[in-house]
């Protein structure tokens, strides 16, 4: 059993390194995107093996649902932007220095087992081949340092006993949610603020242009959306609910709901009206503002900033998580659509 798991881990690690390397070294952007989607899949499995199902859930939703769509549409936009310059023949794409297309899984796996392969690709992907050996030396040194660090680190239990000792005051039954929304609520507030900043950053860059595309004809896609959308909504809320006692929570739920929104905007069953900008702003900021307001209320009425009275902890955490889910989902869809809606400027 343990030997089988070890073999699984080794294969997984080799796959991760190999995919990461080919993804970075690929000069064909579409291939790089597909490799990145594959990387996300393998990464989710790696998080499972690291016994972090919460992160695996988030990676599954973001890797499978959002990054793929985001990168593919970005690729299309890049082409659309570069289209006018199509006439002047630009320089041919830089040669792929690390390796030509091996096209051979054995070679792929062999290369990937080389401990520095990922670092090699990272440090010299599009540069001329003459930097290769110094890069190999540097990454080999880094790998040695990393291994030395790992070997000398003591494997203590970390903060797990401390969290377990205080679970009864947290208001929830899942350690990670307790840490995220009670013991270290400050971190989560800053993360929400970061999501908000990302959304605002995209909006500040300009208005979103209509994608130069139209939905695929035929009845299959609308039918699939009809099936998937309700299931995605229930699953998203289920993950939010599960967060209080099992893997799940606001980020995972927000990512699933955001992916559902992206699917909606991609399939576009009928022309969706732009939402009211005022409502959209409220929705995007709801998570961070609600969190901050309740935290401030804790400062004046409760023990301290961003702490909850013990008997109110559960409902307060639920309220904050609901707001955060809404904000994360809306921000992800807004990032996908890119730019503020035309009605904002009107």
């Amino acid at each position: 059993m343990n030997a089988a798991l070890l073999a699984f881990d080794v294969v997984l690690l080799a796959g991760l390194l190999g995919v990461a390397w080919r993804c970075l070294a690929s000069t064909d952007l579409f291939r790089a995107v597909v490799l990145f989607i594959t990387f996300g899949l393998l990464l989710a499995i790696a998080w499972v093996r690291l016994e972090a199902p919460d992160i695996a859930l988030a990676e599954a939703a973001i890797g499978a649902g959002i990054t793929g769509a985001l990168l593919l549409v970005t690729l299309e936009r890049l082409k659309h932007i570069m289209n006018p310059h199509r006439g002047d023949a630009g320089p041919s794409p830089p040669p792929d220095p690390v390796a030509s297309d091996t096209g051979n899984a054995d070679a792929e796996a062999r290369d990937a087992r080389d401990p520095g392969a990922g670092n090699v690709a990272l440090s010299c992907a599009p540069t001329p081949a003459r930097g290769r050996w110094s890069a190999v030396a540097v990454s080999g040194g880094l790998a040695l340092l990393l291994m030395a660090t790992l070997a000398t680190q003591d494997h203590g239990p970390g903060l797990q006993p401390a969290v377990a000792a205080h679970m009864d005051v947290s208001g929830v039954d899942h350690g990670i949610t307790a840490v995220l929304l009670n013991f270290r609520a400050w971190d989560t507030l800053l993360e929400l603020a970061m999501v908000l900043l990302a959304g605002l950053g995209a909006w500040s860059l300009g208005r979103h242009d209509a994608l130069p595309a139209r939905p695929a004809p035929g009845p299959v896609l609308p039918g699939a959306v009809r099936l998937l959308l309700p299931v995605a909504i229930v699953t998203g809320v289920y993950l939010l609910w599960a967060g209080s006692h099992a893997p799940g929570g606001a980020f995972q739920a927000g990512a699933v709901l955001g992916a559902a929104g992206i699917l909606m905007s991609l399939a576009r069953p009928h022309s969706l009206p732009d939402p009211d900008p005022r409502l959209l702003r409220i929705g995007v900021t709801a998570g961070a503002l609600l969190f901050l307001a309740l935290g401030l209320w804790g400062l004046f009425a409760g023990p301290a900033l961003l702490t909850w009275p013990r008997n109110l902890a559960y409902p307060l955490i639920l309220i904050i998580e609901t707001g955060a889910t809404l904000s994360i989902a809306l921000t992800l869809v807004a990032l996908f659509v890119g730019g503020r809606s035309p009605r904002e400027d009107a």
Partner: protein
Amino acid sequence: MNDTRQSSSNPPVRRARRPGWLRALLAMLAAAALWAVLAGGAALAHPFAWLAIALTGGAVLALPAGRALRLNPTALPGLLGFFLRTSVLGGIDVAWRAVHPRLPLAPAFEPYYVRLPHGPPLTLFMSMLSLLPGTLAVRLEGRRMTLHVLDGRSDNAATLMELERRIARLYGLDSDPPGSAR
């Protein structure tokens, strides 16, 4: 190539659209069932269950309305059995062709004229036929569907007509007398 050119004998039946409240109600019932599967029946009392159910109802209203079709539940087991049987056959068929040293493929494009009306029946048909042995829906233009088949020499249309007949029975669109074998 099979002769699948048939006149579309029964034109699509235009039916009234289902009122919004009924669609939302049905979707909410389905959402409640799904919630019970995911979270357990006891969790239906949690406010988040109501939130999920309400959101689903709202989302279904945002989707365009389909035509109201009466389901005929007695046809469901037959369709499911047929589907499972043929999809197992389809998997075995593809697996056999993939491992065969000489790759026995004769890929071809074939036209097929669909008789099912647009809406859920056609969607179901097009999704299911991609899972049947040797057929893949490529494109639909009006009634004319382009199929890709793995083996142009075999009688693909017969399976499709059988599937079409069963789906038509599921939605109560059957014009054939019951029991008539095609």
